[in-house]
């Protein structure tokens, strides 16, 4: 293995990841449009991916990479299913505002 180049410290990655995650989380809570909320979820997932990769690099193992790919696959599947659901919801209800979609409520 070649010697490691001068590294960006792990903390930096983690800070970026934390910021991204917080953006996603807060966005999910405060935005009303379902598509935006959906994008926020993707943001959170990617934040996690970033930490995984960073840790993987730090520990010199491939586990983190592996998980990242898993997450990406799941995210892709989720995007497919999720968008399909959103489309159907829109067709049925003619709205994408999350507050109006509350038929789970008793």
């Amino acid at each position, binding site marked *: 293995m070649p010697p490691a180049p001068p590294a960006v410290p792990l903390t930096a990655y983690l800070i970026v990841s934390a910021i991204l995650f917080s953006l996603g989380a807060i966005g999910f*809570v405060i*935005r009303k449009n379902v598509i935006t*909320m959906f994008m926020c979820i993707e943001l959170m997932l990617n934040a996690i991916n970033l930490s995984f990769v960073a840790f993987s690099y730090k520990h010199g193992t491939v586990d983190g990479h592996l998980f990242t790919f898993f997450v990406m696959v799941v995210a892709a599947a989720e995007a497919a299913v999720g968008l399909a659901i959103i489309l159907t919801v829109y067709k049925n209800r003619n709205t994408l505002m*999350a*507050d109006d979609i*509350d038929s789970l*409520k*008793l």
Partner: protein
Amino acid sequence: MQQLWLIPLFPLIGFLINGLFGRKLPKSAISLVAVGTVVASFLWVLKTLSAIMPLETPHIETYATWIQSGFVNIPFEFAVDRLTAVMLLVVTGIGSLIHVYATGYMAEEDGYYRFFAYLNLFMFFMLTLVLGNNYLLLFVGWEGVGLCSYLLIGFYYLKNSASTAGNKAFIVNRVGDFGFSLAMFLIVIQFKTLTFQDVMKQAAQVPVEHAVGMMTVICLLLLVGAAGKSAQVPLHVWLPDAMEGPTPVSALIHAATMVTAGVYMTCRSATIFLKAPIAMEAVAIVGLITAVLAATIGMTQWDIKKVFAYSTISQLGYMFLAAGVGAFGPAMWHVVTHAFFKALLFLGAGAVIYSMHHEQDMRHMGGLRKYIPITFGTLACAWIAIAGVPLTSGWFSKEAILGAVYHHSPIMYWIAVLTAMVTAFYVSRSMFLTFFGEFRGAAVPAAGHHGHGDEDDHGHDDHGHAVEKHDDRAHAVAHNAAHDTEPHEAPFVMWGPLAVLAALSIVGGFFDLPHFLEPALPPAEHVAHEAWLEIVGSAAGILGIVIAHIMYVAKPEMPDALTAKLGGLYRLVYDKYRVDEAYDLTIVDPLIGGSRSFLWKGLDAGLIDGMVNGAGSTARLVGGFARWIQTGNMRTYGAWVLVGAVAVLAYLGIGGGVR
């Protein structure tokens, strides 16, 4: 092998043919099948008996295993000993006669095929009952004849009273069967078998029980069973109602054969009974009470079939009395002679009813002697036989019973003699009312027809015959309407059997049956004949006839005066001691009411379901508190997740992190 199984098989085939295809067959074919199979069975009995006749020991045929579980092994097994031989002859012989008679009596009825199918089925079960060589096969016949009795009592199923009477018969019989089946279980526990020979062989070794023990309990339970089937007090209530069935049924099932099954079973179990003197005493007392009560009721009834029904109960009581005092031979003798004369009485009554266009109330009869002499002649034979006129069949068996009873207990003897007099009285009364005096049929206004019995729950008066006001049974015929009021003689197919039975009623007693039965029954002590006993017995019978003659022929105004004087007592007897009402009040109504209001609405729907539903609503209540969190808003949920995650992280952070 004598192919004993053929005996019940013939009627079964008849049942299957008539039951499955009878609807499409002409009446002549139905009659041919029905009568033919029973006669075939009778002939086969004759052939078999002649082949195996001395019959000092039973002839047993085993066919197959029926039930086998652990040590309980019950085969399909038929056996003939002398007791069975007698029953076989009575059942198939009288059965054949009654089948012939019924082809005439039922000729105009709807459901002709159904009637004969049931009747053949009855023969099958009765023969199984008699032939079966273990208690369970006997029980098969026992329940089976009960079923046929149910079907035939309810034959006029459009009439509510008929189907109710059928139910009553079945259910009361079930109470008896309850006792019988429990007795069987105890027999299995005690003897490990239900086969008669094995049970009796072991029972003979058991010491006589002078306190209540196993044998006594078995016998008392058997008595319950016998009382149900043979209509003994307190389970006698079904038999009078059973008269809702067609008259040939009353003759065959409710007089000659089925109801004597209890006596047969008691004699069959004689060895066990002899080990249980307490139970024997109970049998005798039940028999005596039944004989007395039923005979007194018989004096007061107006419906000719009801009179004979109570007479049957009373005579069965006599047989039980005989069995109870250990006179099993005379009991069976009386079964046979009773089968002759009581079948004759019922068939004769049927002929009378037929000739009266389905009128049963004796107050509307009278003077029929002139119109239907043959019927009168044959009935007279039965009359003197049941009254115990010397040298008739009934006299022999009755004297044998009375003699045995005297040696057991003089008090019982005198009560029994009195009952014999009452018996002679009520039969004579019915004969005088029916055949003597003036014909009262036309004199009674039509409205009166409906006034008599208590069972005038008329089913369907809507079939257009204006004249047939009397009864449904008057389904009868249009041609009756032409000469409605004039009684007319029954056809030959009906009086032919009557004549045969009449001959048997007179001479049937000359065959010394108890002596014949000795090999089949446990040895009984022989009692010396005392001539004065026979004189007293005969006198009682003749006295009864004379009194009846005075009251109903010589001084016809006397009965009314007497009933007026007796007042309440007479009403009580007339109302059959109000036993039915008492049962309704103490058993039926509380059971139904209690089941509905307490067991169902209270316990099931109220308490148990209340608890179940209570558990459900408690869960709902708890859920209700947690419900406000569930807004249904996705973003709120997200926020909750976030808050939760932050809380967990904060906890871990404060706690020092994961190690």
